[in-house]
């Protein structure tokens, strides 16, 4: 591609997503969506599942210059299937000129992507549906007040895990679940790393078939931090190795950035109220050690 994105100055300078949405100040999901939309463009139909971003389009307003369809929590990929199949039928029968075709995009939070919508997602990948799935992962049911979801990290406090050990489970490996289906493309991104994000969206846009963009979405209200810290927390998620930036393509997983030296996970955890119980009233060395050991083990396997 001649206009390929290589440097920060190659990033789109026109911004397509409208302002004034009801998302919270400092929303890491909206930060990522702004950047994604600039690269994808407006020839898109966003098929949405119940979550924070359902509130982007409240009658009669929308920040999207392209199209939108809200479905329900479990079935946005099935909605995308119906839209894509119908567009294909209209194109084949010449009832839709090729220039009127649309990219079919699914937009959901982690509650739908990791949990309720996983069956319809898996089936859409099985059918080799030509769609791009964007998940803004704020690691909990954010829209209802941050109850634990299958994306919640170990030990984080949530509205349903208020005790001193936080969430007892472990964050589900959605990247791995997708990759096991052998789709066209899977990538993790974060709004705080715009160049990496834009390159991946550009690559995803050039491919056909099932594609996932999994965006970690720092969430000031759910994770309990000042909205001004959103970008810095995103960068720390990458520097500490909590959020590996990686891609799956052609059957291989590639890590785009191996943090070296890796910042101690504590630096990341300390920025967020959801982990404050690990530091006060007294330090929980055992739990902090366990979290660090998990991250070390991940990167040891990557570097092997």
């Amino acid at each position, binding site marked *: 591609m001649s206009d390929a994105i290589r440097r920060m100055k190659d990033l789109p300078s026109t911004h397509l997503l409208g302002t004034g949405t009801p998302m919270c100040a400092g929303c890491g999901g909206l930060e990522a969506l702004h950047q994604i939309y600039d690269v994808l463009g*407006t*020839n898109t*139909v966003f*098929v949405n599942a119940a979550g924070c971003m*359902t*509130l982007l*389009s*409240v*009658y009669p307003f*929308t920040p*999207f*210059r*392209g*199209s*939108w*369809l*809200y*479905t*329900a929590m*479990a*079935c946005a*990929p*099935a*909605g*995308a*299937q*119906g*839209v894509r*199949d*119908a*567009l*294909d*039928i*209209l194109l084949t*029968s010449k*009832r*839709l000129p090729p*220039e*009127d*075709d*649309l990219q079919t995009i699914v937009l959901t939070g982690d509650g739908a992507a990791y949990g309720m919508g996983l*069956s*319809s997602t*898996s*089936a859409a990948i*099985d*059918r080799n549906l030509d769609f791009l799935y964007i998940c803004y992962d704020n690691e909990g049911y954010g829209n209802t007040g941050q109850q634990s979801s299958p994306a919640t990290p170990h030990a984080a406090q949530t509205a349903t895990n208020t005790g001193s050990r936080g969430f007892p489970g472990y964050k589900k490996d959605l990247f791995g679940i997708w990759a096991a289906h052998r789709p066209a493309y899977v990538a993790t991104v974060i709004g705080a790393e715009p160049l990496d994000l834009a390159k991946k969206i550009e690559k995803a846009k050039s491919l056909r078939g099932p594609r996932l963009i999994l965006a970690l979405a720092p969430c000031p209200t759910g994770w309990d931090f000042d909205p001004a810290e959103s970008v810095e927390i995103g960068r720390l998620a990458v520097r500490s190795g909590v959020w590996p930036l990686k891609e799956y393509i052609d059957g291989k997983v590639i890590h785009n950035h191996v943090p070296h030296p890796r910042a101690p996970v504590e630096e990341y955890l300390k920025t967020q109220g959801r982990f404050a119980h690990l530091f006060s009233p007294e330090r929980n060395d055992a739990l902090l050690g366990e979290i660090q050991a998990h991250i070390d083990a991940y990167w040891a396997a990557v570097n092997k």
Partner: protein
Amino acid sequence: MNRQLLTGNAAAAWGARLAQVDYVPAFPITPQTEIIETLARWFERGEMTGRLTMLESEHSMVTAAAAAAATGVRVFTATSSQGLLYAMEMVFTVPGWRAPFVLVNVSRGLASPITLESDHNDVLATRDSGFLQVHCATCQEVLDHVLLAYRIAEDSRVRLPVIVNLDGFTLSFTREPVDLPAAEAVQQFLPPFDPQNVRFRASKPVSQAVAVLAGSPYSYFRYETHLAAQQALSVLDEIAEQFFQAFGRRTGPLATYRSEDADMVFVMIGAGATKACEAADRLREAGVAAGVVRPRWLRPYPAAALRAALAGKKAVAVIDQDLSMGQGGVLHAELAAALYGMPNAPMLASIIGGLGGRNIPPEEFYEIAKRMLGFAARGETPPPQLLFTERELRQVRKLQAIAVVERKELGEKP
């Protein structure tokens, strides 16, 4: 005209084929599966153009159906029973999209206990969803009403999805002679789908199915859907007349059989009503002026037509093949609401029968007619009746006895 022996399922598939549907999202379930297998074969052989996509659940199937309709193609889908209930969130969601399509439901009793044969609790659970619904009694009616359903669903005064219902087993697997209309005649009656302003294309972006945040806009859009459903009654009259002109068969919100001069009327929906017609003939031979009123359309509800058909009757027995636990028959309650306060209203009785495919033999119709006329003559209304015979009870007791013996055999203490 081409006359063939077709099952109810095959008639439904032929309806979709003649309607030249573009898209069939599908998922198998007994007793509906023959419909999607038939359509899949036709798509594979190139006898139908477009696409059949197997979904992984009915919830996804109904989502894909409505999403495709909202993109601007003609959509057909089918399910039964548990499948319809699995899809129920979307069954209630998609009518508000105002993207018309047709769903054939092949009625089957609901769990628990899990079973395969017909009753109407599945389709009646969709009663308040915004889907229109029409109930068929013959294989011919199935084919005819798939075609009619598209005309009504796609009419700019309606724009709502329609459920065409047929009874599992009694109709789905029964072969009857069916007139297959010529493709050209169907194309004249049913022109290609015009998606109007509900469609997706790059040059004209739209947001569909968006949220509202207050009761007022919510009420506005809900009222609009309700008024469109009510409006479908007059649209139906118009289109039924066009259907008659095109194919020579009469249809309408009600089917009546020997009811005009009847003293006693059975009210039933679906294929079960054909048994009531047979019983009415026998009753007439025995000197009882019996008749049958069969609502085809339940949504929109043809209240005025029912009042007109039942005014002045001595006794009306609604035989519900459904059961609202703790209340009784769904159709009975609806008819009572329609007849309430009407001068010369008939005595209205509630009978529950035919659950899970339980047969209603002629003798039970005769007995119902005799008893209901007796109550009416005394100016009384009987309590709701649950049809069940001593012989059936004896059979259930035998099953229970086997279960007890087998438990003992396994050494379980009673």
